[in-house]
């Protein structure tokens, strides 16, 4: 038995799709360059997770690769390293996105926290970040922050999507 699941069409939300990524990249860069906040979960990756669960007929792996490259360029890390992490976490999300979509928001947030934890573990092994003082606590707190951000991000993007599609 097959069931049809509602999936957004990229043509309906083309501008919102690109602008959301652009805004997320700007905010991620702003945190580092303007506010000197070094430990925040990547809003770009969270936005990618959101679209992965909304636009179901696409794999989003190409987007993950390109966004990873943008991250490598912005953070001055070896080209392809963030792409690898983005691709891995997106792949994990792809494997369970239909189930993920059916979960209540609080449960989704916890799973997102888990994905960000994978992101942090991979970053730990690939970049060997130099953490002093309280930095290790902040570093491992990022999944918790992601858990808190996810409902807000989902709410905002859902509203914007709704406005774009139905207006």
């Amino acid at each position, binding site marked *: 038995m097959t069931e049809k699941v509602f999936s957004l069409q990229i043509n309906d939300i083309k501008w919102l799709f690109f602008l959301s990524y652009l805004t997320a990249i700007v905010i991620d860069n702003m945190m*580092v360059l303007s506010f000197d906040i070094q430990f925040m979960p990547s809003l770009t990756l969270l936005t990618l997770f959101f679209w992965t669960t909304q636009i179901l007929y696409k794999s989003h792996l190409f987007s993950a690769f390109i966004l990873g490259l943008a991250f490598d360029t912005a*953070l001055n890390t070896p080209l392809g390293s963030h792409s690898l992490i983005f691709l891995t976490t997106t792949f994990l999300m792809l494997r369970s996105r239909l189930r993920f979509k059916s979960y209540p928001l609080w449960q989704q947030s916890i799973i997102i926290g888990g994905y960000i934890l994978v992101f942090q573990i991979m970053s730990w092994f690939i970049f060997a970040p130099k953490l002093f003082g309280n930095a290790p606590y902040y570093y491992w707190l990022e999944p918790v922050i992601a858990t808190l951000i996810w409902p807000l991000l989902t709410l905002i993007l859902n509203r914007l999507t709704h406005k774009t599609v139905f207006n």
Partner: protein
Amino acid sequence: MVSDHYTNALSNFRNLLTATIEPVERVAALPLDLYNWIQQDYTHSNQLSAENHRLKTENLLLKAQQQQMKKLQLEVERLNRLLGTASQFKSTDVQIASVIAYSQTPFAQYVILNKGALDNIQLNQTVIDAKGLIGQITSLTPSSCRVQLITDPEIQVPVRIQRTGQRGILNGIGHEQLSLLFIPSSSSIKVGDILETSGLGEIFPEGRPVATISNVKSLSGEPYYKISAEPIADLTRSQKVLILSPRQEAEHD
């Protein structure tokens, strides 16, 4: 990933990506620019007057020192000719640049300068401030460049201890901290010693002050000291820096 980490094969591709993402970074740096602009606007005229007075005094002192330097430079050139060694640093072979933004994350540490390929800036040029070495240019866009700071974990600077001439490798460990490697336990080193570039590796010009020794630990059974150092340059506070040109750097060879 491996290619970018160990070689310069992807440097042009990185430059292209940096140029693409530059507008995003400019927008991201806007809140900081706005904050600086507002802060500047509220600076009291008395403060500006006091700063002007201080700068005039400093300028006078520097001019006096420059006169002495010219005399010393002539003397050094004469001695170099006698010894047949390479010529020395020429102060005209530099470009002044302003810091647009800086980033200090646990992964990488760099500053963005307002000079780029259109200003004849090239990759691997050395950047200094009034006090000492800041880093090396690692990527370029037409109008800006990125300088990897000496505290970046990816960068290693060949240095020597100014007092003894003992050579070693200075490694960035982030958070304005450096680690001096390969100094044998038998050598003479103490807290406060100044480290300067040794010129080995032909990347950084010789004789630039880099760091001050802050801690020396001797581990039993280990052939080398465990040494910590602090950069001399104001890595995160300098607003104006100097980019040394390749011609001038080549003269040290």
